[in-house]
């Protein structure tokens, strides 16, 4: 193995080199920007995480699993997973092996970026060795892998359904340039290496190509146009990269350690948010995930477009999308890179100015015991917070009380004569301070009661009690878990009937708090549980979510219909939900009877 040219240089490398330098500079600036914008205490957290072997190990694992192997996509759809990982991992291996070759054969050229990339052009084979053949074989093998991925990608562009995606994103012009240059890179590499395979060597893929060229041209290795084309394709790709979705390739490398360090979105487009925004590959998984996509117009309100509008600094449009979102969190759960879609939107909502503030001082003026006799509960009693919705769905709180009474549990209703809202609706509207005022009031009532257990029957309330109330020493429990626990302990006995139930996972309870099993276990005690079309973390929002600020009644209605269709896929007799808002929303439109979880338990309890 020797160098073909003493200079070790050819002009065709320039497009690649310029592109490469451009990208590196861009990424370096981006990295600095993100790190500067991250809050100080977060930044320290990041630095500490980098020396924490446990987190570092996770980082490495994630880099491989997420960036190269796309494990999540594999789980979703094998073809989709293969397509992504073949390109990512194959390309990665081409670069790695290219470097190995360079270091093995021309270590002095190791500092040149372009050398490993165009290795075959600059080298001439003098003798065949096993090691060389193996490397050549590997190079051709991974090129084949990548090419197979590219072919799948081309197919996906036209027939996305084959890969389990009903919809794909609409590409911008630059995205298209990026896409086509990406598609072009590897076939061009094959052709370029084919031209030089006679001199520079090759394996099972490039050598046969070389035979074809050799049969046409006398000295195909001197045909540099193919190398120019290859380099230009690379250069083009790199030049457009920062402005396309392919920016996710470098961005995700940064995102993984930040995420693993426990950093959260604080501002709509700065710091960690910036890393997330650029990590979005515009893959469009969120399109199918989003309940709003039941309307064609709703597609424009999905996370991928939100990210795009924020990146474009189209504030009005971004805000419109942010306000529309139901905050159901399904896109985040399915997102291959876990973009915190709801947090990003919430960060924008939080920045909206309001001229009329809130004033909850009237709550402080209430006389003691005005809301309920919960002032001094104490002992082993349960404090039950029914929530503001309870007056619209009285069946829920009545059923809960019936179950508690039957189980012989002493309890007190916290909001008997009026509810102080849990604060979640305000929080979801971005009005954090106002939410805190309500939370403080509730905390005061809860703490004063002295009860060790706070029982909550509303999924929305439950989430905020769990996540944002700092109620140390008090067990906050959702009635689904509590009743299942009572049933498992034998504190309540349940009748089993021949009724088919389907359980709807409320967004706040399922994706929000991870409670999927307790209600299901309890329901199997009273009847047959049939699965919904999509359930658990893929459950579809009922459409009534407080998260959305601007969805119209009609738009919500269509989402509700869609969600009901999903729930009734296996013709259940009852739709069971564990959130009063879902129940209210469904029962407006459902032909199948909609009941609350507590109601089902109360109906089947043996007194």
């Amino acid at each position, binding site marked *: 193995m020797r160098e073909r040219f003493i200079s070790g240089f050819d002009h065709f490398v320039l497009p690649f080199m310029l592109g490469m330098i451009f990208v590196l500079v861009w990424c370096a600036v981006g990295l600095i920007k993100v790190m500067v914008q991250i809050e100080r205490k977060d930044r320290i957290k990041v630095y500490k995480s980098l020396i924490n072997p446990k987190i570092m190990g996770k980082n490495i694992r994630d880099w491989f699993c997420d960036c190269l192997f796309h494990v999540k996509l594999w789980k979703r759809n094998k073809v989709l997973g293969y397509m992504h990982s073949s390109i990512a991992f194959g390309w990665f291996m081409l670069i790695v092996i290219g470097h190995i070759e360079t270091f093995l054969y021309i270590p002095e050229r190791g500092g040149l970026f372009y050398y490993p990339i165009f290795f075959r052009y600059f080298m001439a084979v003098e003798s065949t060795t096993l090691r060389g053949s193996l490397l050549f074989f590997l190079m051709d093998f991974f090129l084949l892998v990548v090419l197979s991925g590219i072919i799948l990608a081309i197919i996906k562009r036209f027939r996305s359904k084959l890969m389990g995606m009903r919809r794909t994103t609409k590409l911008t012009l630059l995205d298209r340039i990026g896409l086509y240059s990406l598609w072009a890179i590897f076939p061009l590499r094959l052709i370029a290496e084919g031209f030089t395979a006679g001199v520079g060597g090759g394996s099972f893929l490039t050598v046969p190509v070389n035979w074809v060229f050799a049969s046409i041209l006398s000295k195909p290795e001197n045909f540099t146009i193919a190398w120019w084309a290859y380099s230009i394709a690379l250069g083009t790709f790199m030049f457009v990269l920062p402005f396309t979705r392919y920016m996710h390739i470098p961005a995700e490398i940064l995102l993984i350690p930040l995420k693993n360090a426990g950093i959260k979105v604080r501002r709509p487009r700065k710091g960690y948010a910036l890393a997330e925004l650029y990590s979005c590959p515009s893959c469009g998984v969120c399109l199918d995930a989003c309940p709003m996509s039941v309307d064609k117009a709703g597609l424009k309100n999905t996370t991928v477009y939100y990210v795009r509008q924020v990146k474009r600094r189209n504030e009005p449009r971004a805000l419109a999308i942010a306000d529309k979102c139901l905050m159901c969190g399904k896109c985040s759960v399915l997102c291959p890179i876990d973009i915190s879609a709801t947090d990003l939107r919430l960060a924008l909502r939080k920045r909206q100015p309001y001229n*009329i503030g809130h*004033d*909850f001082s009237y*709550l402080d003026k209430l006389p003691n015991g005005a809301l309920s006799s919960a002032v001094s509960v104490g002992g082993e009693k349960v404090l039950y917070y029914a929530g*503001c919705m309870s007056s619209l769905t009285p069946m829920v709180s009545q059923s809960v009380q019936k179950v508690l009474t039957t189980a012989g549990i002493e309890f007190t209703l916290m909001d008997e004569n009026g509810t102080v809202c849990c604060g979640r609706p*305000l929080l979801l509207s971005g009005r954090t301070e106002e939410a805190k005022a309500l939370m403080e009031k509730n905390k005061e009532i809860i703490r004063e009661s002295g009860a060790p257990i706070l029982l909550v029957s509303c999924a929305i309330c439950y989430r905020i009690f769990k996540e944002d109330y700092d109620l140390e020493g008090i067990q906050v429990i959702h009635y689904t878990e509590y009743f299942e626990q009572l049933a498992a302990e034998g504190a309540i006995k349940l009748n089993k009937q021949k009724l088919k139930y389907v359980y709807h996972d409320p967004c706040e309870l399922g994706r929000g708090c991870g409670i999927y099993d307790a209600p299901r276990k309890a329901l199997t005690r009273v009847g047959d549980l049939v699965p919904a079309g999509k359930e658990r973390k893929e459950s579809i929002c009922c459409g009534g979510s407080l998260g959305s600020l601007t969805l119209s009644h009609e738009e919500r209605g269509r989402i509700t219909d869609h969600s009901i269709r999903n729930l009734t896929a296996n013709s259940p007799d009852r739709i069971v939900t564990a959130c009063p808002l879902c129940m209210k929303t469904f029962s407006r439109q459902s032909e199948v009877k909609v009941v609350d979880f507590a109601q089902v338990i109360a109906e089947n309890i043996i007194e």
Partner: protein
Amino acid sequence: MIDFGYTLTPSSTIEIDDADLSLFDQLCALEPDALKCMSCGSCAASCTAGVFTDVNLRKVLLSLQRGCEKDLLFQLKSCMLCGKCYIVCPRGINTRHLILSICKIYNI
């Protein structure tokens, strides 16, 4: 000026001629549902904060429509944004966004 022990009492009349509805127009552009209210009163009747205060969304919206925003806007300060009014509204008015939009556009 002489103190007679009494003065002119301000008129309670809603003077539509003097009403500046430009803010209301802005509100309708932001939340068109503002025009849909038929004053049934369900929102006020089910209001969580209404248990404790006089807050009455129907009246607030009406006062805005009549250009008397100064009268009742303060009531919205006690709103907890719980959304029960949306659930009960027979016209499906997006009350929460309506309230947020009012808070954005109007000033007290």
